[in-house]
C-alpha cells in the first residue's frame, strides 16, 4: 500500500471536483454529503492501510525509515531537479492518520450542521479540496510539494472562511486570513530558496542527510536565517505573534470549518513544518530560543485575551492560538515529538470543543454570545458531556489526553539546555501561568454556557422555548472525539513515573530526532555541560532527584488546572454569576486591554495599513499617472510633434517635390564624393 499512498490525496480531490463541478446538478443534498464523506472515508482507509503497511515493513525499513514515492518529474531546469515526491515516514504517517480521521468525523458532522444551507455541495467541495491540500502538505517529500500544499490550504481557508460571501464582513475576514498568510508565505519562500542554494535540493531526505555537512561548511548565521524565515511562515500559518490576527476573525466561517481548519489541521501545518525541518532548527541554538520565546509569548497573550471574550467561538479561537504557542515552545526546546504529540491530542479535544460549540449555536438557533446562554446542560446532554470532557482535557486533568501532552511540554521546558540560562525557568513559569489561565477561561466558557440559570434572550424563548439537542450526525462525531480525547494521551505516551509508555516518542524518533546528535554537538561546542543524546538533563531546579522534580511539576500543573476550573470559574459563572462585573470595574485597564485583544489590530492599522495605503496612493498619483503615463503619452506627443513639424514639407506642389528630389541627389553625391572617396 505504501506506493499507493497518493490515493489518500486523490480521493478527496476527486470528491472536490465532482461536488464542485457538478454540484448544481446534484439535486439531492444527501448525495453531495455522501460523496464528500465517502471520499474522506476512503482516504482514511488508505491512511490506515498505509500505517499498517509501514508498521509491518518497519523492520526492513529500519535502515532507512524514509520511503519516497515519486509521482512524476516536475521541474527539471538545468541542474535543478524537483520531482513530485511523496515521503512516507513516521511523521507523515502520524499526520496522515489524524488528519484523515478527524476530517472524516467533521465531514459527517457537516452533513448535519450545513443541512439547511444552500451552498451544501460547494461546502463539501471546498472541504474535500482542503483535505487534499493538507495531505499534499503532510505527505510532501520535498519543500516544493509541501509548499504546494501550504498554499493550497491557505486558499481553501480563504474560500471557507468567506463561505457565506454575500456578507461583506465574511469576505473581508477571508481576505484578512489570506493576506496575513501570504506574508508568512514570503518567509517560507525565502527559507526554501536558501535551502536550495545551500543544499542544492529541496528533498527532505537530502536535507536530513546533508544538514551537518552543509552547516559545518557554511557560516554560523545560515541555519539561523533559514530557520527564522521558515518560522515567519509558521507564524503566519499557525497564527503566532505577530501574524496571529487572522485566526479570531476566521471564526466568521461555518463552525465545521473552524473545527477542521483552525483547530485541528491547517494551523498545525506550521508546527509540522518546523518538526519536519528540525535539523535546520536544531543547528543553531538561537533559532530554537526564538521559536520558544515567540511561542510562549503568544500563548500567554492569547490566554489573557480569551479570559474576557464573550463569543464562544472567539474564546476557542484564542485558545487555539494559545495551544499552538505551546506546540512551538516544544519545538523551540528541541522536543519536536512532544509538539507533534500535542498536535494530535489538541486536534481531538479542540475539534470536539468546536463541534460542540457548533452544536450549541445550532441549538440556540445561531446565538453565539455566551452571555445569553446558560442552563443548556439539561437540554443538550450529549453536547454537554463531550464538551466538559474536552474542557478537562485541554485544562490538563489526568488521565485525559491533554495532561500527558501539556505536562510533557512543561517538563521539556524545564530540562531545556540552552546558553540563555534564565530561559527555562522563566518560560516554565509563564507556561504554568498560561496553563492556569487556560483552565480558567475554558471553565468559564463551559460553565457559562451549560450551567447556571438560563439567560436566554426573550425573542429566543418566545420562538423556540428552549434549545434542542442536535441530530445524531452531529452528536456522534462529538462522542468519538471525546473518547479519543480520553484515551489517546495515555495510549501514546506516559511519563516515566507513570509507566513510561514511549510509543509515540520511539515511533517518531527517526523523523524528529535527526538533529539531536548535531544539536548535542553544538551544545558541547557552546560549552554546555552535558553531551550525547538521550541523556536525561537536569531541570532548572532540582528537588531531591530528577524524578521527584518531575512529579512535583506535574502536580503543580494539575493543581493550577483544578483551581482554575473549579475554584475560580465554577462559582463565578454559576452561583455567583454577575460578580465578574465588579471585577471588571476594579481592573478596568486590564480588562479593556484584554478585551480589545491588546490593541494589536489597531496598532497594525496605524503602523502598516495607513502608511501602506498612503504609499500606494503616492505610487498611483506620482509614479503611475505622472511618470509611466507621462512617458507613454510623451512618446505619443513626440511622434505627433514630429509629424506636425514635418507637415510643412507636404506642400502639395509638384515643383517643390522636384526640389526635394534634387536635394536628395545632391546629398547622395556629397556622400559619395566626400565620404566614400
Amino acid at each position, binding site marked *: 500500500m505504501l506506493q499507493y499512498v497518493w490515493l489518500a490525496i486523490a480521493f478527496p480531490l476527486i470528491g472536490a471536483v465532482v461536488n464542485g463541478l457538478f454540484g448544481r446538478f446534484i439535486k439531492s443534498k444527501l448525495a453531495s454529503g455522501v460523496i464528500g464523506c465517502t471520499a474522506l472515508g476512503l482516504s482514511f482507509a488508505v491512511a490506515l492501510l498505509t500505517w499498517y503497511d509501514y508498521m509491518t515493513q518497519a523492520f526492513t525499513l529500519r535502515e532507512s525509515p524514509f520511503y519516497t514515492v515519486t509521482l512524476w518529474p516536475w521541474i527539471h531546469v538545468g541542474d535543478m531537479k524537483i520531482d513530485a515526491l511523496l515521503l512516507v515516514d513516521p511523521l507523515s504517517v502520524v499526520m496522515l492518520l489524524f488528519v484523515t480521521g478527524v476530517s472524516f468525523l467533521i465531514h459527517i458532522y457537516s452533513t448535519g450542521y450545513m443541512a439547511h444551507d444552500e451552498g451544501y455541495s460547494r461546502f463539501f467541495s471546498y472541504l474535500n479540496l482542503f483535505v487534499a491540500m493538507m495531505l499534499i502538505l503532510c505527505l510532501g517529500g520535498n519543500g516544493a510539494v509541501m509548499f504546494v500544499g501550504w498554499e493550497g490550504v491557505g486558499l481553501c481557508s480563504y474560500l471557507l472562511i468567506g463561505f457565506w460571501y454575500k456578507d461583506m464582513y465574511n469576505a473581508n475576514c477571508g481576505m484578512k486570513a489570506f493576506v496575513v498568510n501570504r506574508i508568512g508565505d514570503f518567509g517560507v519562500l525565502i527559507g526554501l530558496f536558501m535551502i536550495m542554494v545551500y543544499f542544492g535540493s529541496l528533498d527532505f531526505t537530502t536535507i536530513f542527510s546533508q544538514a551537518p555537512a552543509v552547516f559545518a561548511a557554511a557560516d554560523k548565521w545560515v541555519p539561523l536565517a533559514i530557520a527564522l524565515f521558515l518560522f515567519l511562515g509558521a507564524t503566519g500559518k499557525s497564527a503566532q505573534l505577530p501574524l496571529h490576527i487572522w485566526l479570531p476573525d476566521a471564526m466568521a466561517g461555518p463552525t465545521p470549518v473552524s473545527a477542521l481548519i483552525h483547530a485541528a489541521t491547517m494551523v498545525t501545518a506550521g508546527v509540522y513544518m518546523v518538526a519536519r525541518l528540525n535539523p535546520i532548527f536544531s543547528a543553531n541554538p538561537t533559532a530554537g530560543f526564538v521559536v520558544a520565546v515567540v511561542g510562549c509569548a503568544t500563548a500567554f497573550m492569547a490566554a489573557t485575551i480569551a479570559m474576557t471574550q464573550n463569543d464562544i467561538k472567539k474564546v476557542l479561537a484564542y485558545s487555539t492560538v494559545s495551544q499552538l504557542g505551546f506546540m512551538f515552545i516544544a519545538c523551540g526546546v528541541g522536543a519536536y515529538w512532544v509538539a507533534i504529540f500535542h498536535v494530535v491530542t489538541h486536534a481531538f479535544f479542540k475539534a470536539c470543543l468546536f463541534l460542540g460549540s457548533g452544536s450549541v449555536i445550532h441549538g440556540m438557533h445561531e446565538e453565539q454570545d455566551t452571555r445569553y446562554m446558560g442552563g443548556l446542560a439539561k437540554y443538550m446532554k450529549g453536547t454537554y458531556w463531550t464538551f466538559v470532557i474536552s474542557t478537562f482535557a485541554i485544562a490538563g486533568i489526568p488521565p485525559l489526553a491533554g495532561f500527558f501532552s501539556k505536562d510533557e511540554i512543561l517538563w521539556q521546558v524545564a530540562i531545556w539546555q540552552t546558553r540563555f540560562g534564565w530561559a527555562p525557568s522563566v518560560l516554565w513559569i509563564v507556561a504554568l501561568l498560561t496553563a492556569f489561565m487556560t483552565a480558567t477561561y475554558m471553565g468559564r466558557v463551559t460553565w457559562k454556557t451549560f450551567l447556571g440559570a438560563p439567560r436566554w434572550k426573550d425573542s429566543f424563548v418566545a420562538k423556540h422555548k428552549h434549545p434542542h439537542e442536535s441530530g445524531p450526525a452531529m452528536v456522534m462525531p462529538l462522542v468519538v472525539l471525546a473518547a479519543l480525547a480520553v484515551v489517546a494521551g495515555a495510549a501514546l505516551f506516559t511519563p516515566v513515573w507513570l509507566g513510561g509508555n514511549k510509543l509515540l516518542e520511539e515511533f517518531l524518533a527517526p523523523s524528529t530526532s535527526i538533529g539531536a546528535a548535531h544539536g548535542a554537538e553544538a551544545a558541547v561546542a557552546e560549552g554546555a555541560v552535558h553531551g550525547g543524546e538521550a541523556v536525561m538533563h537536569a531541570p532548572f531546579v532540582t528537588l531531591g532527584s530528577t524524578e521527584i522534580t518531575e512529579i512535583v511539576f506535574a502536580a503543580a500543573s494539575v493543581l493550577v488546572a483544578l483551581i482554575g476550573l473549579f475554584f475560580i470559574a465554577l462559582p463565578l459563572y454559576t452561583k455567583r454569576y454577575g460578580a465578574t462585573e465588579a471585577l471588571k470595574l476594579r481592573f478596568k485597564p486590564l480588562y479593556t486591554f484584554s478585551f480589545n485583544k491588546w490593541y494589536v489590530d489597531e496598532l497594525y492599522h496605524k503602523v502598516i495599513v495607513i502608511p501602506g495605503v498612503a504609499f500606494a496612493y503616492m505610487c498611483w498619483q506620482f509614479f503611475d499617472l505622472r511618470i509611466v503615463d507621462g512617458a507613454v503619452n510623451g512618446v505619443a506627443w513626440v511622434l505627433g510633434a514630429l509629424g506636425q513639424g514635418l*507637415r510643412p514639407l*507636404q*506642400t*502639395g*506642389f*509638384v*515643383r517643390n517635390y*522636384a*526640389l526635394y528630389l*534634387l536635394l536628395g541627389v545632391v546629398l547622395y553625391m556629397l556622400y559619395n564624393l566626400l565620404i566614400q572617396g
Partner: protein
Amino acid sequence: MSAIVANSLILSAMLFTIGVLGVMIHRHPVVIFMCIELMLNAANLALIAFNRHHYSAAWPTLDGQVYAFMVIAIAAAEVAVGLAIIVSLFKRRVRVDVDEINLLRG
C-alpha cells in the same frame, strides 16, 4: 580622359542643371516638358562622350551611341503621349497650371 570627353561631361552636367532649374521654376506643363527634353539631351551627350572615351581598336564598342539612339526614340514616344495628355487638358478648358495640383497638401 581626353579634354573633349571631360569637357563634354561637364557640358552635359551644365545642361542637365539648367534643365532641372527650369523644371523647378516653370508653372506651365509644356515648358516643363521642354526642360525635361533638355535633360534627356544632356544625358545623351554624356552617353556619347563616354562612348568616345572607351572606343579603341581592340574593343570597337558603339554601345553609347546605340543607347543614345534608343533614348531619342523613347523621348519621341514620350513627347507624343505627354502632349496628347496636355492637349486633352486644354480641350476641357482646365486651367493648365502645375500649382493647381495640390490636393495632397498636408
